[in-house]
């Protein structure tokens, strides 16, 4: 019978020890940096180190591991380590940061109001995604506040995208005003129509 059964097997080696982990995070080759990124959450000074590594690391897989470690921590420090990446030059770095911030849920919420008021339209656009995890009423209030004063069509589109999932009836007046301001921008007219229909249909259901 070629099938065999072993009662035990040698476990995989584990990178540990603060100095080893932090050194590997910056100086190791890609696989070592990857393992170190996974382990860094568990050593003192790990968050700061992960934040620093995030500014430098070019390997996609190591970046993912860094962001996953920070996401799991979901602390204010972890959020602040990720926030600067919203302004990164490389598109994938920006969107990777948003994925992580959205996944950190409550930890990221306090930062939303200032992000939605950021002078940089790209930051405002990205920040809308973070509102997706908020309770419907809060998300609606924040995103409608953004829309009312927003001149960039794509930022509005980003906010409306999230409202399509989480928006409440309170959003309807702001959406109507937005449609009027952006009359002729057909994608926005479409988004607002669909989002409005979704919100209206849910409140028309059985109470």
């Amino acid at each position, binding site marked *: 019978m070629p099938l065999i*059964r072993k*009662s035990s097997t040698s476990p995989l080696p584990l990178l540990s020890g603060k100095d080893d982990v932090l050194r590997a995070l910056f100086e190791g080759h890609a*696989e070592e940096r990857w393992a170190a990124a996974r382990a860094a959450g568990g050593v003192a000074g790990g968050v700061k180190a992960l934040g620093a590594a995030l500014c430098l690391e070019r390997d996609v897989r190591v970046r993912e591991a860094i962001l996953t470690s920070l996401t*799991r921590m979901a602390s204010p420090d972890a959020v602040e380590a990720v926030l600067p990446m919203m302004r990164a030059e490389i598109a994938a770095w920006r969107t990777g940061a948003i994925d992580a911030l959205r*996944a950190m849920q409550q930890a990221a919420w306090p930062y939303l109001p200032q992000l939605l008021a950021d002078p940089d339209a790209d930051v405002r656009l990205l920040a809308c995604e973070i509102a997706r995890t908020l309770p419907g009423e809060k998300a609606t209030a924040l995103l409608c506040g953004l829309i009312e004063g927003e001149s960039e069509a794509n930022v509005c589109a980003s906010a409306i995208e999230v409202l399509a999932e989480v928006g409440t009836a309170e959003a309807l007046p702001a959406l109507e005003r937005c449609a009027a301001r952006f009359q002729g921008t057909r994608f926005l007219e479409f988004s607002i129509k669909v989002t409005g229909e979704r919100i209206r249909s849910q409140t028309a259901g059985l109470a």
Partner: protein
Amino acid sequence: MSEFTAITEEEFRRLCEFIYRRTGMVFTEAKRYYIERRLVERMSIAGSVSFASYFTRLRTDVDREIERLINAVTVNETYFYREDYQLRCMTNDLLADRLKHKARGETIRIWSVPCSTGEEPFSIAIWLLENWRLVDQYDIEIVGSDIDTTVMEKAHAGVFGKRALMRLTDDLVRRYFEPQGAEIWKIIEELRESVLFTPVNIVDPVETRQHGRFDIIFCRNVLIYFDDASRRVAAENLYENLMPGGFICLGHTESMSRISPLFSVRRFTDAIVYQKATGGPA
């Protein structure tokens, strides 16, 4: 039980988009009636009086509602030779590829996780004995693991009913199982003893590391239940548990590509599988 109107077109779309983003599963218009019926059941059980309140419950995953909804809309019955196209891929392509990188006499290690009540790891064993022409030339170690120790105990007991065996020929049942009474069979002792069953939480690297490295991992229909962060950690853990060049097979509605950039996609005749890079330190 109160009566519900069917959900609106927009509500259905909203649900589908959420499920797609969260799990990768695509619900199409064609399946709408099927899904609506099960959705209404879930709404009733959950005590939601409107789709809006149910959707809030779903979005915030109250009481693991996402898992419950997925279970309600998927066929998650386990049986021998389920999704056998992957077993075929294993004997047609994956093992040949692995052998190129293995020394003579080196054991082939295969992991079935989650193994549930054992149909999958025992299927792998029987399939190899029946279909791999090199099976007598190598030592093969099959490990079955699950987070649920109750189902694992059942797996270890190796007793199955008629439905579990429905895709096996009478000949296979005769050779690999012993009747235990009315429509109950027990897998033969030789096979039962040859699979190691262990508990594991695949989101916990401390637990997954205990298992060493594998040539092939079958991890079917469990990642869809996780949230994004847990799913990414599980993918990282499973990556560590593969030998360089090793393969991981997911359920047919799942895609590792949307979960993690760690693996390369390999398209074989029978299946799409995911591979860890060869070469370099592991």
